[in-house]
Structures are given as C-alpha cells and as structure tokens.
C-alpha cells in the first residue's frame, strides 16, 4: 500500500519534471499562457570559465591556519610560508601524508599519490594549489 503510494508519487514527480523541462525552453510561438515566467538567467549561471579567485596570500594563510591546528607540529613559532614539514616542523612522513590529506580536504581537491609525495613544504603546497584550477 505504502509502496504503491510512493511509486505513484515518484512517477507523478518524474512526469511533472519531464513536462516542465521542455516548456521552459520552448520559444514563444506557443500561446503566451504556456510560457512560464522566465527566471532571470544570470542568477543560476555559474561562470566556470572565470579565473580562480584564490590568491597566493589566501592559500598560504589557509594552509598555515590548518598547520596551526595540527597538534603534531612541534614548534609553532617556526610556522612560516617557507617552513619544511620535516626539517622545520618536526613532522614525520606519516604526518606529512596527513597534512597533505588535510590540504586536500580544505581545498576540496584530490591530489594523486605521486604529486602528494612531492609536497614537503608549505611553499610547495601553495604552488601546487595555485596550479589547480578547481581548488577553492
């Protein structure tokens, strides 16, 4: 009983969706009553082509903040844009992997293993993020 009701409502919704979609795009040769009010196009458009809004300083700041909250950093005073994860911050290779993963999460990208292994300092991380068009 419940299942049929659910199925029916889904079918209704699907049909409504199919019916509604072409109506929006149909040019105005139909009678005006069929033409749905046009939604301002600008609001729904996302300009994927526009340049990444991330600035170098912003990326550096976000990475440094992330490291500041990382409890394994031995000496927070050494936290500068040029610090090396192992030599300056006292992180081991496992911690480095964790930092890189945290950076991935922060900028919502996925860094392939090979490139992730090459990131050993804040600078390198910033350069990598700046080279990624889809980081945000």
């Amino acid at each position, binding site marked *: 009983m419940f299942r049929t009701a659910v199925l029916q409502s889904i079918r209704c919704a699907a049909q409504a969706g199919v019916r509604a979609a072409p109506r929006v795009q149909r040019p105005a040769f139909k009678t005006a009553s069929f033409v749905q009010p046009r939604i301002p196009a600008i609001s729904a458009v996302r300009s994927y082509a526009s340049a990444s809004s991330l600035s170098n300083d912003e990326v550096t700041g976000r990475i440094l903040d992330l490291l500041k909250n990382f409890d394994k950093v031995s000496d927070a005073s050494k936290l500068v844009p040029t610090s*090396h994860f*192992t030599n300056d911050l006292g992180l081991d*290779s*496992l911690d480095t*992997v*964790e930092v890189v*993963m945290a950076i991935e999460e922060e900028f919502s990208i996925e860094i392939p*293993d090979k490139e*992730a*292994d090459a990131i*050993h300092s804040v600078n390198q991380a910033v350069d990598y993020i700046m080279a990624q068009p889809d980081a945000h």
Partner: protein
Amino acid sequence: MPRLSGLQRDALSLYRKCLRACRLKPADTRANFYIFMRREFEKNRELNKKDFGTIEFLLRKGARQLETYESPGVTNIAV
C-alpha cells in the same frame, strides 16, 4: 627529504588509503579507527628499510586488514 624507495612509497600509499577509509566511518568512532591505524603503523616504525621480506609481508597484511575494516558493517574498533 631523501628520495623514497618504492616500498616506502607503498607504505605511505597504504597509510593514505587508510586515512581515506577512516573518513567514511561514523563521526563518533572515527578517532578510534585513526588511533588503531596509526598505532599499527608505529609498531613497525623501527624496522630496517632493507628488510624487504618483512615489509612486504606487513604491507600485504595491512592491505588485508584495511579491506576487512573498511566494510561499512564495521562501525567501531577497540583501541
């Protein structure tokens, strides 16, 4: 940082996979998984990097453990 050997890279890659698997666990027990995983890796930290047989065995063992624990049915782990 010195160039990593193939086995070292494999170990880091396994660690990365484990971390990714941890993220999929329920938020309240995620820390347990993390502690467990980290401890398993730390146990063999002092292993000689030329001890290829042992490392390969441990990598296989780790991969098998990951396979077991990453199943969605496993929701908590004793640490």
